[in-house]
């Protein structure tokens, strides 16, 4: 029997995902028509031996309960949301709920960070883990560019044994281009290691006092507090994947992840993709996901890489490309949406142009990852990014919105270029 843990953090996390995370928890933001962590759940549920999924975070239960109920019904697997009383860190949360994880004595459990998107190779990961009886954990890794590797957990791996001999989280100088994907398999014995780290921290706290008053004494980070000390001990191994993988930090990365999840549907869930024959709703340039409840004029042209949510209304002659249209948005006739996210209940007038600038990985560099540029450049100007409308934003007819971010519940009255509208 196997279990899985999805670590989703809490409302104080995911700030770079604003304004999209202002009205919906980031783990529930729909990418390719499904909440971000439903993709995780789907990958877990595809493994027969996996009997339970535990979602750990510190969002209020009320924000997650409906989703958890829906998922249980849909995937026929036990799913529980375990709310931390405060931010406990990635390892602290696991340790706090160790009894829940251990109950029923699973042979191993997966741990997936909620803010990654990937074609999760969970079965291969488990197989690799099982082959090493001495291993406490196996880390999924992928190749990054030399420069970008500094933004991730970097590790040195023995080419023969695949043992991780060295691990540094976000090093300041180059260590390795092999990076941590935030996807792991653990044996239950890992709790001995986490327990030791926990006890050491507690001892320190009661002897010397905490050096960070804002954090709970049980705060433990998986990367710094567990992986780094464990490197070179012969208990931690790597499995490198060539599958698509990305972090989901900024709103721009949602557009990028949307495109890749849609592409994965082609093989695994073609029924989720709109085709011209099937929909007869409008012209489609694949890949496109359109919710069945969306009403789309036959003269609209949609795609590639577009997701359209429930209850969306799209008018005559509308063109949408590389964008996510969230639930109940209305796009009036003749408008154009490019590289943008349109929030729930937003309203776009006629002949409007909503356009952003993508910050996709450099296609000319092998293993390049999504860049997550800062909001502002060194001159204090807004870096060009995708255009994001928070929920219930209204855009007047015939205006242009370029590289801008509009916070929720705003009624715009003019064209906006390279601005944040509070």
């Amino acid at each position: 029997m196997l279990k899985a843990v999805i670590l989703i953090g809490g409302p104080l996390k995911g700030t770079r995902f604003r304004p999209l995370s202002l009205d919906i928890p980031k783990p529930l933001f729909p990418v390719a028509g499904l909440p971000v962590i439903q993709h995780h759940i789907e990958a877990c549920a595809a493994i027969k031996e996996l009997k339970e999924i535990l979602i750990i975070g510190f969002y209020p239960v009320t924000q997650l309960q409906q989703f958890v109920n829906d998922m249980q019904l849909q995937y026929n697997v036990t799913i529980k949301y375990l709310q931390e009383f405060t931010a406990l860190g990635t390892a602290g949360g696991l340790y706090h709920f160790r009894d829940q994880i251990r109950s029923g004595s699973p042979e191993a459990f997966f741990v997936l960070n909620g803010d990654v998107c990937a074609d999760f190779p969970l079965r291969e990961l488990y197989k690799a883990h099982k082959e090493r009886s001495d291993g406490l954990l196996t880390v999924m890794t992928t190749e990054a560019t030399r420069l970008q590797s500094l933004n991730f957990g970097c590790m040195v791996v023995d080419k023969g044994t695949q043992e991780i001999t060295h691990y540094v989280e976000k090093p300041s100088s180059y260590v390795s281009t092999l990076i941590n994907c935030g996807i792991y398999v653990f044996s239950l014995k890992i709790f001995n290691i986490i327990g030791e780290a926990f006890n050491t921290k507690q001892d320190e706290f009661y002897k010397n006092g905490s050096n960070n008053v804002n954090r709970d004494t049980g705060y433990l980070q998986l990367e710094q507090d567990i992986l780094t000390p464990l490197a070179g001990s012969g208990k931690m191994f790597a499995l490198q994947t060539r599958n698509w993988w990305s972090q989901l930090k900024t709103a721009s990365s949602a557009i990028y992840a949307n495109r890749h999840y849609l592409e994965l549907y082609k093989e695994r869930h073609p029924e989720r993709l709109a085709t011209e024959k099937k929909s007869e709703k409008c012209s489609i340039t694949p890949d496109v996901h359109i919710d069945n409840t969306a009403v789309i004029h036959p003269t609209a042209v949609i795609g590639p890489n577009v997701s359209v949510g429930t209850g969306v209304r799209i008018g005559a002659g509308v063109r949408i490309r590389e964008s996510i249209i969230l639930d109940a948005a209305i796009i009036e006739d003749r408008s154009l949406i490019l590289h943008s996210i349109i929030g729930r209940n937003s309203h776009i007038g006629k002949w409007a142009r909503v356009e952003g600038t993508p910050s996709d990985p450099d296609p000319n560099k092998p293993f390049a990852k999504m860049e997550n540029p800062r909001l502002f450049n060194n001159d204090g100007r807004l870096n060009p990014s995708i255009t994001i409308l928070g929920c219930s934003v209204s855009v007047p007819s015939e205006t242009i919105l370029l590289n801008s971010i509009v916070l929720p519940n705003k009624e715009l009255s003019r064209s906006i270029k390279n601005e944040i509208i509070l």
Partner: protein
Amino acid sequence: MSDQSGMRALILVGGYGTRLRPLTLSRPKPLVEFANKPILLHQVEALVKVGVTEVILAVSYRAEQMEQELADEAKKLGVKMVFSHETEPLGTAGPIALAGEHLRKSDKPFFVLNSDIICDFPFKKLIEFHKSHGKEGTIVVTKVEEPSKYGVVVYNEQKCIESFVEKPQEFISNKINAGLYVLNPSVIDRIELKPTSIEKEVFPNMATDNQLFAFELEGFWMDVGQPKDFLIGMCLYLKHLRSADPEKLYRGPGVIGNVLVDPTAKIGKSCQIGPNVTIGPGVVIEDGVCIKRTTILRDATIRSNTWLESCIIGWRCTVGQWVRMEGITVLGEDVIVKDETYINGGQVLPHKNIGDSVRTPQIIM
């Protein structure tokens, strides 16, 4: 024969029309269509109406193309067109001396016009006024809101001009020289055949001699020599048409305000055209297009769902689907703008293919 017949007019066409580039890279400025008619013909037609029988065009380049194209029009209108070639730029007065032999053929006063001027040419009243004061010259003056940008004309209650003041810092007058004159042949003697400015070197002397009067223009006036003013002038002209000749304006579904459409143009369904739009012959506007404050020249195509404001679209251009163009964008002849691009204040030279958005005003070579 009325006493005004046999009159002559000199139109100062001049140089390359660089201010109206990129349009003037393909056609001499007087032949660029303003409200579906070459700028020059607006003037010539008005002159013919008051009995002008000979129009002298003072040109310094590309006379051949103009001569060919204007020959037909001249025939239709029954007017003689004479080209007076400058071998060097002679300013605004020199061409009068150069064309002296033509202008002296009769002792009647003659008209002088700057070629970029659009107004409701009141030549009949003008000539009557000129005769009534009996002096050597009459300048048409027009009222402007911000006289400090121009040279203003100062005159007394009898309309006798006293002086000219360049860019006055303190308000003296809000009347400026409108670029239309009536002069007696005697004025030719005041001008030497060399580069000379009529405004700076001829008129001040005439004013000193009390030989110059001001005729106040009623209604609209615009120097349409550059794109921004071309569009302002179009708005004024269409507004004038609304009151003077509303039958010429286009009516149809989705039309807002004053719109002029050539009968050979085709307009698709669900479009919103206007206010202030001119659509030339052979133009095709596909479905769902929105156009405001724009001139579209002959044989251009605007594909579906596109939005245009404050643009001049050159001859035979193709503007793709879901394009947005604004901010005094001027497309030269035969420019192709690809689908979904955004052009803000672009000046695009002829025969270009535009595939990337132009988000800030610039010239596209």
